[in-house]
């Protein structure tokens, strides 16, 4: 059976320091993640937000060593996993697991739910067959699926049920950290509410830490304790959720929050529609702040040098023009 969490473990589950990831492209190397540092404590949810292409999914995958790192270190549950070989990584995979956006794409359609949820236990050689069956029943119960679900196939289930299967599977090895990559983005509002409640219950019961990656700021504002905002491969602002939602400081965070639907002035028709090309970002390799093409505050300094992420108080900010109060 998966062991209970080791009580001697330190409070910090994940510590990422100066992590960079490069992808090869026809135009040379492209920096997808650029010197990102973050940490997550036991029982805590860090929300990671940003637009498509900002590197948030790559960062999530890099933390699990699913993509090659170019630089930086990752400490998972107190162990430096940066240089570990695949074989040496295996036991550590038990402490951190991933849940993906599209459960249908990440679940083998020919397998029953019982087999899908038991697979991680089989791979890691945990428990006898009856023990595994009992564990699967327990996991299905935890995510709010009926015991009969064991014999069903993914295509026989609704999107919300499939996502619960994905979560049960990720929980099979009793991880301490779940990386949730757009895990509720494809779900209808009412189903999303059910899955978010399940995640909250699991966190309260098991003390799980979540890295909650999403483009949906309303959802992140609901689930996260702290929020990190990513743009062009870098973190541009981090802080407690209430501060970020109430008083965003980076011009990009302000733009992002201002665009959340449902927060606009109801008397429509005042804003001028702007040109497209407005999703432009300065590529990582070029230096300077990634937000330069869209920023109203941008100066020569912003084009010449990337502002460092400066920590102050309970957050951090990377901007030449705005400072975070300590």
């Amino acid at each position, binding site marked *: 059976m998966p062991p209970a969490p080791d009580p001697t473990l330190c409070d910090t589950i994940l510590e990422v320091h100066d992590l960079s990831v490069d992808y090869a492209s026809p135009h040379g190397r492209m920096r997808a993640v650029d010197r990102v540092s973050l940490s997550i404590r036991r029982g805590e949810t860090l929300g990671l937000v940003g*637009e498509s292409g900002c590197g948030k999914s790559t960062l999530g995958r890099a933390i699990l060593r699913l993509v090659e790192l170019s630089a930086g270190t990752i400490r998972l549950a107190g162990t430096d996993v940066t240089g570990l070989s695949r074989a040496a990584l295996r036991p550590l995979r038990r402490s951190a697991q991933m849940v993906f956006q599209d459960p249908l794409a990440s679940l083998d359609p020919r397998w029953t739910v019982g087999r899908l949820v038991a697979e991680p236990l089989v791979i890691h050689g945990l428990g006898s067959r009856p023990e595994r069956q009992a564990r699967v029943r327990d996991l299905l119960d935890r995510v709010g699926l009926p015991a009969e679900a064991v014999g069903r196939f993914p295509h026989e289930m609704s999107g919300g049920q499939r996502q619960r299967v994905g979560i049960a599977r990720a929980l099979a090895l009793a991880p301490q950290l779940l990386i949730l990559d757009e895990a509720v983005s494809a779900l209808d509002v009412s189903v*999303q509410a059910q899955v978010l409640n399940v995640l909250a219950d699991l966190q309260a019961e098991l003390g799980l830490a979540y890295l909650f990656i999403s483009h949906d700021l309303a959802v992140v504002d609901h689930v996260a304790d702290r929020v990190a905002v990513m743009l062009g491969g870098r973190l541009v602002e981090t802080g407690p959720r209430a501060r970020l939602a109430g008083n965003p400081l980076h011009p990009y965070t302000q733009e*992002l929050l201002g665009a959340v*639907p449902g927060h606009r002035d109801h008397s429509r028709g005042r*804003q001028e529609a*702007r040109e*497209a*090309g407005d*999703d432009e970002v300065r590529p990582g390799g070029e230096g300077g702040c990634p937000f330069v093409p869209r920023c109203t505050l941008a100066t020569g300094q912003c084009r010449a040098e990337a502002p460092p992420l400066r920590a102050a108080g309970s957050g951090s900010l990377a901007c030449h023009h705005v400072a975070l109060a300590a």
Partner: protein
Amino acid sequence: MDPVLDVDGLSVSFPGPRGTRLPAVEDLGFAVRPGETLAIVGESGCGKSATALALLGLLPANAAATARRLRIAGTELSSADPRSSPEIWRRQRGGRIAMIFQEPLTALNPVLTIGEQVAEAVRAHELVSWRTARGRALDLLRRVRLPSPERCLEAYPHQLSGGMRQRVVIAMALACRPAVLVADEPTTALDVTVQARVLDLIGEIQRETRAALVLITHDLGVVADRADRVLVMYAGRAVETRHARDLFAAPAHPYTRALLAARPRPGWTGPRPRLAEIPGRVPGLAERGAAGCRFAPRCASVLPDCHTLRPGPRPVAGGEAACHRVAETTEPEEPARAACA
């Protein structure tokens, strides 16, 4: 002002086992005036996309659509089956009613340049030369505020960003100055900042052309920002049709209330609030009985009648709602509860 789109008794069904018909849309009615935005909102399987396709005569061949009245810009189409009179429908599409599709990458042809595709849309409805059509295409690309529109004419879809592609799709929908625009989840695939700008653009075009907009979406935030009126669908039927302000201030139907309550709310303090769930799930096409209210099995304020009698539309502030409880449910609602759209 007379509605430019007037629909009554619209039903869409798909073939089921043993010669049965499965109802995707049932007895739907609504009207939209020039310049007005009607949002059709609901969760997967509620019939909102089937409604959009029926308006354009674009349903798949195995679907059957009927209507007591379907009038688009003065032309009565309820008797016109798209299959028996394709020419009438083709003139409607693009000329009087046009669709903005969800996924611009699928809506655009990957091997034709943007210029060729937009010019083709112009030529589909007007007898003009390619040269004239190309000039019109350039105007349209300017109109949707694409940067360097001359360069975009020569570009292929994959060379543009998602937001730019959606602007091209909008340009094509505008090619023949439609009186009614139907937008099916037009910004679902886009980032929020780009989404806001594309919706601003659609609003701006609407103000200029006085086109009526049917905005199909699952996003209640978008509805709160953009819609004048809202039609909420559940399992193929309209449950509530209201002015947007009235709907968000005091939702009348228990389904609408549950839907609004299930959304995360901004600005919470103290311990993290639990999201309100709706027990059960949406009935599949084959599980939809004709009797009673479709929402009854999941409804928190269900009455015995709800299982046997189908509730008809009843007047409420700013519209109507199909609920047996409606007289009781609208009044005690305090506005503050739903104002956080």
